[in-house]
């Protein structure tokens, strides 16, 4: 396989992984933007999205054959469940602590994360066994390739992940820039107290932010279930952390940053595995190296601006 073709193939692999990180990272970045809180439970909302997708397609609706209708049904189910979950996590775990020092919310976030992970492993919940996510996209089982040029392959599922991520990003951009709620969101991110004084219903904006982020995480969960059909309660741990790193890399608080950071991290991972000897052993460690590097070199991230604290 010629060098260039291999490079492009790894780029494609990286974009697919990166799209998932980007979808999850947006949730982290938006919540940080409005609340200055790192919602550690967000990675587990992604897991719940994947789990809901599994249960919806196998237990609730008994989908026998992959159909587009079935896929969208499962996707919507997942989005609804995670949206509600995000709403209630904010309402019950973070809102009561909004006036407390931020470290308190951080600890709570970690607690919610662990609750979802270990509660999920309980026998009466999901159980710790990984579950085989079914095929939901028609035409993938027989012909998984969209494009097959020589040895270069772009899988249908990977292409779909990339496209859906892009569509969601554009939709998000529209919401943030063209709607009233988006304006309120930007106002609250900019100055929390002043926005409240100007009559913005801050509670509603924050709930909206959580719901939006969780919906995107749900989409990511279902897409990952389709690509690597193994879902288990701990699947959100590492991707959650990496998405957080992607958000920091791009500039936490900036939605473009989440997108850029996600794709960049995904591609870096694929390249490290490909071009470094024994790279696959460092695959997960690379993300954390990137985190340290960006915090040392440019802590505000790629798109972030250094904020002056005026005393």
């Amino acid at each position: 396989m010629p060098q260039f073709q291999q490079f492009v193939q790894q780029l494609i692999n990286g974009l697919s992984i990166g799209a998932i990180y980007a979808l999850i990272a947006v949730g982290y970045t938006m919540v940080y933007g409005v609340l200055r809180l790192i919602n550690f439970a967000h990675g587990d909302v992604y897991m719940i999205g994947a789990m809901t997708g599994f249960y919806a397609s196998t237990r609730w609706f008994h989908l026998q054959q992959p159909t587009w209708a079935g896929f969208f049904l499962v996707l919507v189910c997942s989005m609804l469940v995670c949206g509600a979950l995000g709403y209630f996590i904010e309402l019950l775990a973070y809102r009561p602590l909004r006036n407390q020092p931020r470290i308190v919310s951080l600890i709570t976030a970690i607690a919610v994360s662990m609750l979802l992970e270990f509660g999920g492993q309980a026998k009466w919940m999901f159980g710790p066994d990984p579950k085989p996510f079914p095929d939901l996209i028609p035409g993938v089982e027989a012909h998984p390739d969209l494009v097959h040029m020589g040895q270069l392959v772009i899988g249908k599922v990977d292409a779909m992940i990339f496209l859906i991520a892009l569509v969601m990003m554009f939709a998000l951009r529209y919401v943030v820039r063209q709607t009233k709620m988006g304006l309120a969101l930007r106002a609250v991110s900019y100055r929390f107290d002043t926005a409240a004084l100007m009559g913005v219903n801050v509670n509603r904006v924050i709930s909206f932010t959580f719901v939006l982020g969780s919906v995107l995480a749900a989409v990511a969960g279902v897409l990952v279930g389709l690509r690597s059909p193994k879902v288990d309660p701990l699947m959100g741990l590492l991707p959650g952390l990496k998405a957080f790193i992607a958000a920091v890399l791009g500039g936490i608080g900036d939605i473009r940053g989440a997108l850029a950071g996600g794709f960049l991290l995904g591609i870096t991972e694929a390249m490290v595995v490909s071009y470094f000897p024994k790279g696959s052993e460092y695959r997960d460690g690379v993300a954390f190296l990137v985190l340290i590097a960006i915090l040392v070199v440019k802590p505000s991230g790629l798109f972030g601006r250094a904020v002056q604290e005026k005393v």
Partner: protein
Amino acid sequence: MRRDILILLLIGVTSWVCRAARADDDIVIGEFGSLTGGTATFGTSTDEGLRLALDEINSSGGVLGKAIRVVVEDDQSKPEAAVTAVQKLISEDHVIAVIGEVASSRSLAAAPVCQRSRIPMLSPSSTNPKVTAVGNFIFRACFIDPFQGAAMANFAMNNDKGPKARRFAILYDVKNDYSVGLRQFFTQTVKANGGQIVADESYGEGDIDFKAQLTNIERAAPDAIYVPGYYTEVGLICRQARDLGMSIPLMGGDGWDSDKTFQIGRDAVNGCYFTNHYSPDEDTPRVKDFVAHYRAKYANKTPDAMAILGYDAMGMLADAIKRAGSTDGRQIRDALAHTKGYPGASGNITMDARRNAQKPIVILKIENDQAHFVATVQPDAAGSGK
């Protein structure tokens, strides 16, 4: 005052009843395995085979005139939990022997505990040679990886029913003693036979994306890929290899043996080979008998290798206790060490000097979503059965 006396009386009676209910004259055996987690089918299959043997033993009078009672602990596919499980079995349940585990990493974690406590431990299916090297109280009912890795290498290179490959890629699980060991033995035999390892990639148990490693492997243009891992990752790897357009066969070890391999891998696993302890379509009376009884007890489910080894391990242990004539750990250990030609369903089991079983390997090929018997390798032929 009267209410307090009533409560005390209730507590007293309850604890007396509970004490009396504990059967003191059973022989207690411990079993630890991965009933849940990433390798759940290993533990549940072993348990099912074990219980089949237990029923047969107890219904024909038990051992030394007593019934055998098995206490099970789940280690959730985690080595740390395996240690605590075995500690609990030994110190709280006072077991006289332990059966477990399937995964070599977990057997290695638990073995030192059993060795220190002088409780014999019989692993039904751990194949990494280091397990029995922990001490003289640790045994296994199956073959070891030097044999398994070599058998697959020989088959893949020389056997006409195999892929007749010369260039191999390896994709192994770096977090897993079993996988690391198999890779080493496979590589040795390939090189000794003049073959080449053109790519050597790794992953970690729990990973879900292998496309980067598979793309690297594709670049090296191998004839076949050796994937000596456990079924969950193997299923995903096969699918992703096919997704990338790779049609070369993948091969593996007994860690592939699970119905989840087919559930996760679907038709991507067709055309692949793996080494195993037995094949359900083997045409011997003992295997046929075992499969029939297993199906009868477990709703027509086909037993996998872990089930038959669990069955044989229980039988072997009961036989050893009978020969020892006592429930003393040391005597059971000695009896186990002298096991000769025990007629197990998976084959005749004889313990060698290193407390490993000398047993043949079967090679299976997956076709039409089912594993079929292709060849048997006897211990001497592969050259590393000792």
